[in-house]
């Protein structure tokens, strides 16, 4: 049975747990590198091989519409690059500090790594909420369009 003092004590990490955290941090590092590489290549592809601009199918659209579409694509690329950069930074920080912290038996470094992992999941959660919001908005607009 746990005493009050044991309830307040920190979680003891045994050898097995440390091994699992190190393995996870290594995999997270590889995932982070692959993810940022994919984003950089897609940005490169956007500038080197841009997709043909979609032509407006209806009458009444000027050339500005096509320019606006191109500007929107560029904005999307910049936003995705910024988000990928943030995700990479946090995941790679977790990978680096968790490994270093466990190898050097430094709790501060491990805590810093875990904070970065928490930030990584926080960003993912914000993205998921934004996606859900956009999805609901799209459904609402479709419904309203159908009624109108």
């Amino acid at each position, binding site marked *: 049975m746990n005493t009050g003092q044991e309830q307040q004590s920190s979680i003891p*990490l045994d050898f097995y747990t440390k091994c699992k955290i190190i393995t*996870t941090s290594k995999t997270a590092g590889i*995932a982070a590198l692959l993810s940022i590489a994919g984003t950089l290549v897609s940005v490169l592809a956007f500038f080197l091989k841009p997709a043909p601009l979609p032509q407006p199918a209806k009458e009444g659209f000027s050339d500005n519409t096509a320019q606006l579409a191109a500007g929107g694509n560029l904005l999307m690329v910049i936003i995705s690059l910024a988000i990928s950069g943030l995700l990479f930074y946090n995941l790679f920080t977790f990978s680096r500090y968790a490994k270093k912290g466990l190898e050097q038996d430094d709790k501060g470094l491990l805590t810093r790594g875990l*904070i970065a*992992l*928490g930030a990584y999941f926080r960003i993912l959660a914000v993205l*998921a*909420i934004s996606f859900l919001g956009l*999805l609901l908005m799209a459904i609402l607009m479709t419904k309203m369009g159908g009624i109108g």
Partner: protein
Amino acid sequence: MTEQEDPSIFQTNESDPVFDQQFSNISRWARLITTIGFGIGAFIVAGVLFNGAAIFREMAAAAPIKMTGLYGGLVVAFFIIFFIAAAVLYFLYKAANFLKTGVQQKDAASISEGFVYLNRFFIAMAVFSAISLLVNISTLL
């Protein structure tokens, strides 16, 4: 006199709320992601059940490349991606649950089990990223 090995700083009974809080922080955000993910998944399943055939037919018609069997290919690709995404969310959900239990019970075994599932989640993420990287490289060439 026998030489005693210094205990690891991770095996001391010193209270470190900041350290413990990080596990529950990770667990909380991971749980939120899985909740939203399962919600979106349920919505997609409902959409496919009610209007799936029409959606896939429209997607096949709108595809830039026309070929025979594109409709069937789209359906198969959808199910493959859907089940992989479900597996990824399941790994994250299990990791969040084990981390939460580990923090509540101060149990290292649960924490390690949580990291086993987090490792599987990152493996799946790495596979997704590798596929995305290969697709992006193929568009460059």
